[in-house]
């Protein structure tokens, strides 16, 4: 990595001190990691989310188990395409709906928090190549999201393994679809975190960024779900909303009418994420800090 950095021994002031203490991307990455994990809010929000993913998985495992004996519940579940084909993965991944809110807030805060406090100026003064800062922050947010998602899924599996086995719904990692749903949960959460991080970098304000992220993640699908009942175009738009499309990679079972296939759906979400991050990169480079 340091090989990519131009030699720093400027002829006018070539001191060994300057040589040793120069900025490298690895160091920026370490700095951003220290920043995120030196905030208590990071620790408790990750811990809380892991616990809630386990708790929600238990609820869902219970519902799947009793569905056979309760026609009413079975009917409700049949209406939801995500639950039409019950499997261990459906229960274990169920908490992603909550986890996406945590990672969205955590990701947005990792940049808006610096703007709110003025810390961003100290950051950009230490690392004037701002895209390095942006990339390092994004990587740290993504890595944290992977840790959160894997820990959450592991906790969910541990909490539900005996219930699911009893109902013949044990998680089967040799089943490609279930494996894809588990990996998809991690990928989906990383994409949502990256999207929200991009929104935070664009908006700079915590309130505006979180409002936008929640609006995109939760409110838009609700609005278009209502509209879809009366207008075909709304159904088309609905399928391409970031979360509706992205969530397909978490789902198991046949693709319902009007929705995208898992791979295509995730590609749509990734597309939005890349577009927002690109816009954020341009804005961060150009703007006054």
């Amino acid at each position, binding site marked *: 990595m340091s090989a990519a950095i131009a030699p720093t021994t400027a002829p006018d002031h070539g001191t060994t001190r300057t040589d040793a*203490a120069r900025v490298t991307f690895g160091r920026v990455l370490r700095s951003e990691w220290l920043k995120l994990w030196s905030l208590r809010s990071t620790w408790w929000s990750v811990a809380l989310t892991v616990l809630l993913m386990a708790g929600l998985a238990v609820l869902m495992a219970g519902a799947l188990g009793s569905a056979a004996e309760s026609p009413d519940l079975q009917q409700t579940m049949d209406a939801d395409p995500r639950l039409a084909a019950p499997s261990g993965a459906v229960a274990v991944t169920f908490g992603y709906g909550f986890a996406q809110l945590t990672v969205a807030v955590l990701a947005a805060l990792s940049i808006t928090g610096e703007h709110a*406090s003025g810390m961003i100026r100290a950051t950009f003064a*230490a690392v004037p190549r701002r895209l390095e800062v942006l990339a390092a922050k994004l990587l740290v947010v993504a890595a944290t999201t992977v840790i959160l998602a894997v820990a959450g899924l592991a906790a969910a599996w541990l909490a539900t393994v005996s219930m699911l086995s009893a109902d013949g719904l044990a998680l089967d990692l040799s089943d490609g679809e279930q494996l894809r749903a588990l990996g998809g949960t991690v990928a989906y959460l990383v994409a949502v975190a990256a999207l929200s991080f991009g929104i935070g970098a664009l908006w700079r304000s915590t309130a505006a960024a979180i409002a936008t992220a929640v609006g995109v993640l939760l409110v838009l699908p609700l609005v278009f779900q209502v509209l879809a009942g009366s207008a075909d175009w709304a159904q088309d738009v609905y399928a391409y909303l970031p979360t509706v499309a992205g969530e397909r990679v978490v789902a198991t079972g046949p693709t319902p009418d009007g929705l995208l296939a898992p791979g295509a759906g995730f590609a749509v979400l990734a597309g939005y994420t890349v577009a927002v991050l690109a816009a954020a990169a341009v804005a961060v480079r*150009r703007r*006054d800090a």
Partner: protein
Amino acid sequence: MIEAQGLSKVYGSTTAVDGVSFTVRPGVVTGFLGPNGAGKSTTMRMIMGLDRPTAGSVTVNGRPYARHRSPLTEVGALLEARAVHPGRSARSHLRALAATHGLPDRRVDEVVELTGLGSVARRRVGGFSLGMGQRLGIASALLGDPRTLILDEPVNGLDPEGVLWVRHLARRLAAEGRTVFLSSHLMSEVALTADHVIVIGRGRILADAPVRDVVAGASRRTVTVRTPGAAVLRTALERAGGAVAAPDGAHAGARDGALEVTGLEAAAIGDIALTAGVALHELTPVASTLEEAYLELTADAVEYRTDDRGDRLAAAGTTSTGEQP
């Protein structure tokens, strides 16, 4: 060394910094003086590569700030108090900044001790007083042992002991051969700390000179004279080269009128009065304070900017020529 060339910053229809050029040299403390809103902070942010200049350029130690590979060892900056996430401890904040340059934790501990933050370093910054926040900002600035220091209003919020500490620190850093550029809106502070001063008002440089010159020029001396023969004395004083003004709008010829005389010592005025046969009821030398002189200097930047600085300082506010007969 900081070198600015025709540096400008325009926000919409507001020109915050208007084509300033200056050089800040190593080995001395350079004060950057101006009222709030004069463009000090904007200029400093442009030096640091945080704000993009609308026109012009500025280099630090020979190149634009953003081109340095090791910026913290080149420039340490205190740009605003409390540019720190409130949920982070002082030590974590410094460690995160140090990590960008691979500086060891040992250096973090050094600046913590140097700035007197030892007892609070592990506390969260959110609970810090303004003064402790300011010390943390200075600790951040010193982290890379930089050759150039940029301190924006470093004494804001400090108690008298802290003010003294900053003053000594700035002088010591300059004595070590570093470039120290320190802004303030208080002339008295700059006069006590700096060797050289750049005065800015409405985005333009009003003065760029050694502090003692500015102080000498700014501390104009006037003499208040009260006499029943004001008209006669006035003529005599003006013939002797003095500038005479009648304050409070009183007519120079009015009975018991007070005159403000500049350019003549009190003793000389007394002699002239004796020669002219005019009785004196009052003869009081008045030295304007630094603060007053500075207010005059910056009160109307547009009016003063094209004048020669020395004359301008001496003449500022002393005449009300419309009153002359």
